């Protein structure tokens, strides 16, 4: 197991209205640690020195919950494609590296503390329309509504979005269109969700704008940084649906 000495420049900010600043710490790590485990080591050291640890969010630590938002060396979730910060291992860094760690920065994601940002705006987009409100009744037999494999896969791929917010952090406009499009697509592509598609699309896009997320100008930075490799074709689909529902819906 090869030991590594790393210099971290890590963002410290007490609360939303604090200016915040980078703080430098040297950490002993090894190649098998995940990025978060390396931060755990730092925090344990800080606590032992009776200092305040760096606040960061984490839950599953296996790439499925979307909690571990942070910008590592200028990239949301770090240098590895298709990988969340919790799944990024230190073997992708070199002994002696300087690493810069910051929170996701966007108007609609105010900093709560250090690396923790408030992503309540995402919740409110979901609350606006990211659900299926048909009565499920009793369980139906399997395969009563046949769905093409292609369609099911597209919906499933969109459903892989973990709501982490990296797309917003990556976007020069701070737009959350990739997230919104993924959530709208995974429901709207299937027959159960199609019924209320027009209302859903209108409500989610309006909430998106209301939260202060920017407009999408097709830079595709979101797709490049998305840890779940959500395709921008979802945005194109959402735009089509949005246009169509603007012409037909009375919401």
């Amino acid at each position, binding site marked *: 197991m090869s030991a590594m000495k790393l210099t971290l420049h890590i963002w410290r900010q*007490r*609360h939303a209205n604090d200016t915040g600043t980078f703080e430098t710490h040297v950490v002993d790590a090894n*190649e*098998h640690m*995940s990025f978060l485990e390396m931060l*755990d080591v730092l925090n*344990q050291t*800080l*606590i*032992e020195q*009776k*200092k*305040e*640890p760096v*606040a960061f969010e984490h839950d599953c630590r*296996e*790439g499925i919950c979307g909690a571990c938002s942070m910008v590592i060396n200028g990239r949301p979730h770090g240098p590895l494609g298709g*990988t969340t910060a919790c*799944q*990024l*291992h230190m*073997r992708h860094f070199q002994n002696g590296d300087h690493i810069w760690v910051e929170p996701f920065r966007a108007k609609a994601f105010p900093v*709560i*503390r250090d690396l*923790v940002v408030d992503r309540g705006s995402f919740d409110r987009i979901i609350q606006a329309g990211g659900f299926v409100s048909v*009565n*499920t009744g*009793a*369980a139906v037999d399997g395969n009563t509504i046949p769905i093409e494999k292609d369609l099911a896969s597209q919906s499933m791929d969109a459903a892989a979005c973990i709501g982490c917010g990296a797309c917003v952090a990556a976007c020069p406009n701070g737009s959350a269109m990739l997230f919104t499009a993924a959530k709208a697509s995974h429901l709207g592509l299937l027959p159960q969700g199609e019924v209320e598609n027009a209302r859903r699309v209108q409500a989610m896009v309006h909430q998106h704008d209301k939260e202060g997320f920017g407009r999408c100008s097709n830079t595709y930075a979101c797709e490049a940084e998305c840890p779940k490799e959500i395709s921008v074709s979802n945005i194109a689909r959402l735009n089509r649906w949005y246009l169509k529902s603007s012409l037909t819906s009375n919401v």
Partner: protein
Amino acid sequence: MRKLGEAKVAELYGNLFEMYEKITGDNPYKTPMMIYPAIHYTMGGLWVDYNLETNIPGLFALGECNFSDHGANRLGASALMQGLADGYFVIPYTVGIFLSNEIRTPKFNPDGPEFKATEKAVDDRLKALMNVKGNESVENFHRRLGRIMWDYCGMARNAEGLNKALGLIRELREEFHKNVFVPGSDRDFNPELEKAYRVADFMEMGELMVMDALDRNESCGGHFREEYTVDNEALRNDEEYAYVAAWEWTDTNTPPTLHKEPLKFENVELKTRSYK
């Protein structure tokens, strides 16, 4: 892999293989996976009735945090199963029933005495944790507790070890409340304080798990008592233990009360699961 080919395996298990590669840095399509048995889940959870309502009226618990669907056995993907079943088929109806009876209840006053008392109780508990100002991190206590549970209340357990664990947990809890160090303040966003609050709960939870394991003198499902075996296989005792143990907690100084909910099976015969 030899039978199905890499493409088929990737279609079926691609995400797991990818996850493995990320953690170990090894390509599982090429090198054998390194695996060993470990505890993935613990079974049981909050007591709920058939409507998924806990013993606190109006507080519903759905998904794996309740005890209802996997008492002694928790198989792969049952997290999904229980989340979906509870969410789709139970809660949409039962919460409605609860709310329909509440429709005339006036809005609560957050300045009322109940609110104030609860707020104070939580605040006192937080302040007590902040004010210990000891020398050991919450993480250390969590690890020490985990070690006790792993050593004595793991996949195989016996009365001697469980009794030992009871003493160790009680000592650790006492030490925790005398020597834990929680940095920062209780007025800021403070994840260490939250963790301390949880670890304090885990001490009680751990003790309860040990008591329950001691109480059940048989081997059944995920509970393997080394004293109760035949030919190294689990020895059940359905005469005495075909019940769900629902423990009622009062406070740290009062032993929890055991409520037995009998398990009745009309269509299946209870059997030992044999791995031979």
